[in-house]
Every structure is written in C-alpha cells, then in structure tokens.
C-alpha cells in the first residue's frame, strides 16, 4: 500500500480540519458510533495530526452510513463525513483494496434489495 498523505485526504475531502473546536457533537449524533473503532471526531483530529495509518486500516470507514447527521449538526461546518469518505476513497483507490469482491455479491443479495443499495455499496466499498 503506497503512502496516503494528510494533504491528499484534505484535498480530496475539501475539509478544513482546523475549524474543529473539539465539541464532539459529530460523535454525539453518529448513528454508527457503537460499531466504529474510531469515531467521527477522531477522524477529524487524527487527520489533523497526520495519524492516518490506524484510520486506513480500520473497519470504521465502512461503518459510516453517509447519513450526513454529523455534517448537518457540526457547529463549525467541519463536515466530518467528508473526512471519512476521503480516507475510504484513499483506501479503495489502492489496487486490490476493494472491501467487497464481485464474487461475494450474490450472497449478499435478496430478491427485494433495491438497486440503489447495490449501486451505493459498489461505490462505497469498491473501486
């Protein structure tokens, strides 16, 4: 895995992590909080510090529901979900780093599952 830099994540996400005042409202509002090893506020703080490795290797990036609750409620307009997405895309863009593989997909499907879920999952989990 080639090195992912802080600058890369910041550029891709378009987020200014320095705006964060560490109130934790993002994590207070996150519906996937309990499933995440690193929480939204930690994503922001760790990217600020340049401490990317733990995030890149954590399953937390696949637990974000992209529900925008943290984006909506952040009092500083930081948009933590975009940081998570930035890390996730950095991982997925590495070759061979797809989180789900095409051959596994049929097992995940049931007959009622709407297309949008499949398409979204492809986008969120796979290059």
């Amino acid at each position, binding site marked *: 895995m080639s090195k992912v830099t802080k600058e890369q994540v910041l550029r*891709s996400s378009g987020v200014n992590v320095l705006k964060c005042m560490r109130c934790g409202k993002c994590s207070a509002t996150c519906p996937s909080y309990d499933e995440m090893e690193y929480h939204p506020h930690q994503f922001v703080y760790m990217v600020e510090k340049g401490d990317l490795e733990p995030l890149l290797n954590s399953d937390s990036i696949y637990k974000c*529901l*992209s529900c925008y609750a943290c984006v909506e409620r952040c009092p500083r307009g930081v948009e933590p979900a975009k940081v998570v997405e930035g890390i996730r895309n950095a991982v997925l863009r590495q070759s061979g780093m797809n989180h789900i593989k095409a051959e596994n997909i049929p097992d995940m499907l049931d007959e009622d*599952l*709407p297309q949008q*879920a499949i398409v*979204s999952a492809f986008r969120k*989990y796979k290059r």
Partner: protein
Amino acid sequence: MTFSYYPGCTLKTKAKDLDRYGRKAAEALGVTLEELPDWQCCGGTFSMSKDEIASKLSAVRSLASAKDKGNDLVTLCSACHNVLKQTNDAMKNDPDFSAKANNYMKLDVPYNGETNVIHYLEMLRDRVGFDKIAEKVTNPLTGKKIAAYYGCLLLRPGKVMQMDNPENPTIIEDFIRAIGAEPVVYPYRNECCGGYVTMEDKALAKKKSNKVASSAAENGADMIITACPLCLYNLNKNADESDIPVYYFTELLAEALGVKD
C-alpha cells in the same frame, strides 16, 4: 403544469409502485410528468470526495438533458434526489468540479447547474399546493395515524437540499394532513435506517431500522410512509422488532385521490 421527470433505476425495478402511483396521482392532479428520454443511473450515492469526477458524470448528463427540455426536473426516489441535487449544487457552486466535469463531457454548451431539481413532495407543496390536493381527495384516509419517515437523504445536507427544516421537517406531515390522515411525529423520523450498510453489516442495519420503526410504533402510528426504496426495504426487512407496515407516500396519495387500482 409540466415537469421533466427522473424515475431512476430502482423505480423501474424493485420500486415500481413508488413510480406507478406517483404517475397516476400526478395525472389526477393535472400534472404532466415527462420522463427524461435519456436519463441515466444517478450513481446511487453522491461521493463526498471533491476529486471524484467520473462517478458523478452520469448525474450531470441527466441534469444537462433536463436543461435542454427547459422544465424543472422532478425526482421521486430520495436517493436519486439527493444525488442529483448535490451534483447540481456542485456544478453550480464548485467551479473546479464543474470545469472538470464539463471538460469530460464535452457538451455543446457547458452545463453549470441551470436545471432546477425538485422532489415530488416539493412539487406537491410548492407547485400544486397541499390545499389543492386536499380539495381533490375523494377518499380521505380519515382516522389513519401515519408516521412520516424522512430518512437522511431528503433533508441533508440541509444547505444543499433546502427542502425543509432538516431537524424539524413538516412537509410529509402536511402531506399526511392533506390526504385526510393524522400525522404522528416521532424523534427518529430523520435518523438513518442503515442504508446500504445492509449489504455489509446486517446487524447494524437491523439496529438502525428497528430504532426508527419502534419509535414510530411507540408513538402510536399505524403505518410509516417514505419516499425511499431503500428505507422501505430496511424498515420492512430489517426492522424485525415491530410489524408496522411501510408504504410509499405515492401509494397513499393515489389511494386518497381514488386512482389506486
């Protein structure tokens, strides 16, 4: 009243009811929905990464095609609406993105977010008017206690979607009143159902959808209505702690207007 109409893939397959009833109701209300002839899949989800260009182009193409038609573009599926609205916003307000996208697409005239994208519900509220709908209701759903489920995609990010107050929306509640029923307000109506995570982490999806469905039931709702096929799926399939039924709002609208067959 004529609008361009973007159905999206799901409405052509798993969510045919959402589409079918939507069209019937529109007809009954005197609204012409002209399906965009060359619409493409919106991409399912809007990538929040600024440097993701390619995955957003199909949405841009549909938007540009709607611009050529000259009418406002009506969407129905929450996910498609979210993607189209956010993509359109980026084309309008993010010069870097729109320059790149236009560069890829090589349209005759560059597209810069000129199309006005509105959701079917906004069309009902702002163009038709809920009071007009109430007048046309022949079969009011009197006595039904209905919980509106907004999910996340219709309302957020609020600055882009601009449909309603993202924390205390009223549009679906007003809709419910227009068709003669009683809205049930409950706190989780704008919290996530789990979304696409159902593909990857069923347990999480179940937890989230149960929270929504139980909250609606606890507050005395007979049923939940939604505009999103994936929400409907999650609340039906994954919310296993309650058996509260979930419908598309268009189905109830068609029923109230007496055009449901």
